């Protein structure tokens, strides 16, 4: 995925290293290889490559990771905006 870079400085991914038990799950599940676990501690590498899918946070048994997960999809975000205004509106992603 080196050919595909997206907007920098926006990812909501955060790691609480104090809680981390070094199980390695975040490193395994991330489809963009963001995490590196060394000496029983996870660290965030290339934060700007994170697409906020939420896989790491969901699979962290120690709740050490937070991210605002969602789908990076304009149509979905538009329907969510409309939803906020009108209280109706469906979603069309995937």
């Amino acid at each position, binding site marked *: *995925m080196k*050919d*595909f*870079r*997206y*907007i*920098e400085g*926006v*990812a*909501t991914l955060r790691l609480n290293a104090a809680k981390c038990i070094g199980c390695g*799950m975040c490193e*395994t*599940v*991330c*489809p*963009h*290889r963001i995490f590196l676990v060394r000496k029983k501690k996870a660290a965030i590498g290339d934060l700007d*490559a*994170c*697409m*906020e*899918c*939420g*896989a*790491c946070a*969901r*699979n962290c*048994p120690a709740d050490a990771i937070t991210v*605002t*997960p*969602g*789908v*990076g*999809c*304009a*149509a*979905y*975000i*538009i329907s969510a905006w409309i939803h906020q205004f009108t209280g109706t509106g469906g979603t069309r*992603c*995937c």
Partner: protein
Amino acid sequence: MDGFVETPAGPVPRVITALSFRDRAGAAKTRLGIGRYEYKVVPGLYCAGIPGPEAPVLVTANYKLTFDALRKELGGLDAWILAADTRGINVWCAAGKGLFSTEEVVRRIERSRLAEVVSRRELILPQLSATGVAAHQVKRGCGFRVLYGPVRAADIPAFVRAGNAADDAMRTVTFTLWERAVLVPVEILLLRKPLAAAVFAILLLSGIGPGFFSPEAVLTRGIPAVCTTLLAILSGTVAVPLFLPRLPWREFWIGGALAGILTGMATTWLFHGRVSLWESLALVLWSAALASYLAMNFTGSTPYTSPSGVEKEMRRAIPVQAAGGVLAAVLWIAGPFMG
């Protein structure tokens, strides 16, 4: 299907590991958006080869294309396949929607009585289901340990042979030219209805002129405008996705707008002499706004755009696109009055 394997939980259907002509035709139709949402397999337990109680259990979605992509890789492998009920949606989207979830995996294991069939308490899940499934909670829920397999089904045999180990490449999503190209037909087909409405509106606007409404202008002005629209659609839904890694801009709306300006200039050049300068400007603006909007919508089909990034891009893009569209309409209507 190719017969059944008897197990303590009853007969389990065995899948054929080659795809038939019908499977391929069905896949092609699905890609073209024909009957797209009615392509499922019955959730439950299946198998490939002659699996024993020690054989690996591969969990997948019950979208038929996903299921087929898995079974065609299993030639020569003895394995159990558990199709979760993801309502006929692929792994990634079903996990994002919470259909391929911890609860569904636990429920499917109970319903299929998998515990009576296998002796190992271990499941192999597709890595991309991890957005919906929490491995440690599946363990708590039913005692099975979740191993995340590779992203792509094609790497499953290598994963199993390596003793359930995946390298970095197997764990990374890709977005190859082919993976982008197969998304294009559906993107275009989704535009059928809005396109019909747009063509109607364009022809109507084109007829307006000094003589109030001229049926002749509907054609002389309408045809260039409709051509511009079609080319703008192609630049937003075909050119931008295909050239994506070559575009120097990270934000989709900018790439789309520039592609739209190019095709807009191409159509005005094709029709030069038939459209005035103001009308040409209107067409280029319209083309840019439309292609920009469509390119931005492609973010929904990529495996690397974060929602925070898309939202940031949209807050910048939508005002510009709306302004471009309105200005284009004003210029287009005003065109015939300005000589």
